[in-house]
């Protein structure tokens, strides 16, 4: 029964895995405060690269995936150096234009990239469970970066770079390192995408992919792989769930995004983390003896951070 469900939904499952990896490639730099949509460009390198190597150069599919991911990581590292002087939104827009250049190259690439039609017919040995396995390994690594010391250092580097430096954190090096990681993940996503779908075309790597990535980050939040997974599931499976809504899917989608942007800036995971925190505080207060006096808690003394002078 379960295998039946998997078989019926294999396309969606494939899509979820690929989108999830792409989302991670954007989320990792974002956790350090680097707004980078270059992941879409790395996706293009991985996807078109694998397509070209396998379909036109006769490469082995697995070898192509590995090489293209490494190339994407190298390109990412170079990109990191070139745009290192930029911050925030400017960095974001540089990465968007970087990524969209690939879609222009793809359309105008003639027989190399298949032009507007793209590349097709990549039938290889890669199956869903291969991709799932690699994804699980990646998730474990990401999960480890969300615990303990490293997670605190990442938070500090994002939240307050001066403070982070004062605490010994090498913020620049952390940001630089996030680029090849992002590159490898984006490249893998693209390589897996064409390997599973057998095709890739310019629409796969245009602005709508940027929107896709953004949506996932909005819904899932910037902080955790759990959010990225949730966002990916939301984006891939919502059209299914909304089938009854039919044509209004785009409107529902747009409304959800706007509402989330306004009211849930941290995404879903933050809601969970806040709940967990409140529970911890309640449990602590319950064992009374060490409970802090009322005047130590915010709001009681009538003073808050903003009253500082």
């Amino acid at each position, binding site marked *: 029964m379960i295998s039946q469900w998997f078989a019926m939904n294999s396309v969606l499952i494939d899509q979820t895995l690929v989108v999830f990896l792409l989302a991670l490639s954007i989320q990792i730099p974002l956790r350090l405060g680097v*707004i980078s949509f270059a992941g879409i460009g790395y996706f293009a390198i991985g996807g078109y690269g694998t397509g070209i190597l396998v379909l036109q150069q006769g490469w082995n599919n697995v070898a192509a995936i590995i090489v293209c991911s490494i190339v994407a990581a190298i390109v990412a590292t170079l990109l990191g150096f*070139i*745009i290192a*002087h*930029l*911050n*925030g*939104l*400017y960095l*974001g*827009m*540089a990465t*968007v*234009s*970087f990524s*969209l*250049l690939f879609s*222009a*190259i793809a*359309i*105008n690439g003639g027989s190399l990239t298949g032009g507007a039609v793209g590349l097709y017919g990549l039938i290889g040995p890669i199956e869903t469970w291969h991709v799932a396995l690699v994804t699980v390994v990646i998730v474990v690594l990401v999960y480890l970066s969300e615990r303990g010391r490293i997670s605190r250092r990442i938070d500090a580097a994002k939240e307050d770079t001066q403070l982070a430096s004062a605490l010994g954190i090498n913020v620049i090096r952390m940001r630089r390192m996030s680029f090849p990681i992002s590159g490898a993940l984006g490249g893998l996503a693209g390589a897996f995408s064409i390997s599973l779908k057998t095709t890739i075309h310019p629409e796969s790597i245009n*602005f709508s992919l940027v*929107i896709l990535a*953004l949506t996932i*980050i*909005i819904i899932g939040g910037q902080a955790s792989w759990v959010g990225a997974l949730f966002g990916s599931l939301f984006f891939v499976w919502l059209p299914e769930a909304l089938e009854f809504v039919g*044509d209004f899917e*785009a*409107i529902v*989608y*747009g*409304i*959800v*995004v*706007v509402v*989330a*942007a*306004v*009211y849930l*800036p941290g995404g879903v995971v933050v809601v969970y983390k806040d709940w967990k925190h409140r529970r911890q505080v309640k449990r602590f207060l319950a064992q009374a003896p060490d409970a802090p006096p009322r005047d130590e808690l915010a709001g009681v003394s009538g003073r808050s951070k903003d009253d500082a002078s």
Partner: protein
Amino acid sequence: MEILQILTTVAVSAAIYLLFALGMSIVWGTMAILNFAHGSIFMFAAFVGYLAVKQVALPLVAVVLIAMIAGALLSVLMQILAFEPIMRKAKNAHAAELQLVIGGIGLSALPIFVAQRATLSNPFGYLQSTFTTEYYDIGGWSISNLEIIILVVGWGLGIGTAIFLRRSRQGLALRSLGVDPEVASLMGVDRTKMALSGMAFAGALAGLAGALTTFYLSSLTPESGNYILLKAFAAIILGGVGSVAGLMIGVTVLAGSETAVILFSSGGWVNAVAFGLLFLILVIRPQGVLGKKEVRRT
């Protein structure tokens, strides 16, 4: 004369980009709102004009006015529904920036959706309008009445806005908002009111650009907004955020490069011009041609 013809095309394209980007640049420079829905406002305002003209054969002026009003209203609506709440809730300016972009992108989906439904994703135009294009021939150089209108309106507004911002009191108030909102409000500049009028002005300009573009290209598709948004962004950054004079330079460079690409290579690379320019400028000189050295909006 060939060269004059080319220059005319460049000047007209630049004028359209200018109209579109002017509002966006001012809103960004003074209120720190990068309105990603500006493109869909451009398209939807033109679309409203289309709806009106379908009912009544209207002259150009009427269509344009309707589009401007639609654009202004839509822009104000977005400000009230999304941008203002986001800014109020944000922890700091930095966090607000990303949220505003996200909110804008989400918002942009809605007008596009409505237009797509109504037109079944087909292009729409102002065929029923009473306006007819007339060409004037001056010794081998031909220019149409529409092109003259676009040139006058676009560059006129551009220069006029530059002077207004520099010389008038309201202009000074707007610019002070951009430099230091807190000090500005202490000096009596009402941020919310300025924000609404700023957005209305930008929306009206977007509507103006949308209507004129639809006349000029004879049609628009519901997706047209996205591309012009990215191009405008490139022009703004090139010229320097908040600088109208810089923007005029930026749109000229953009229109010029695109025309050159169309003339000397296959048309497919046209859109890439904006991406390439944007990337180069950010890498080499992020403050743009006329921007200040310190890139304030980070």
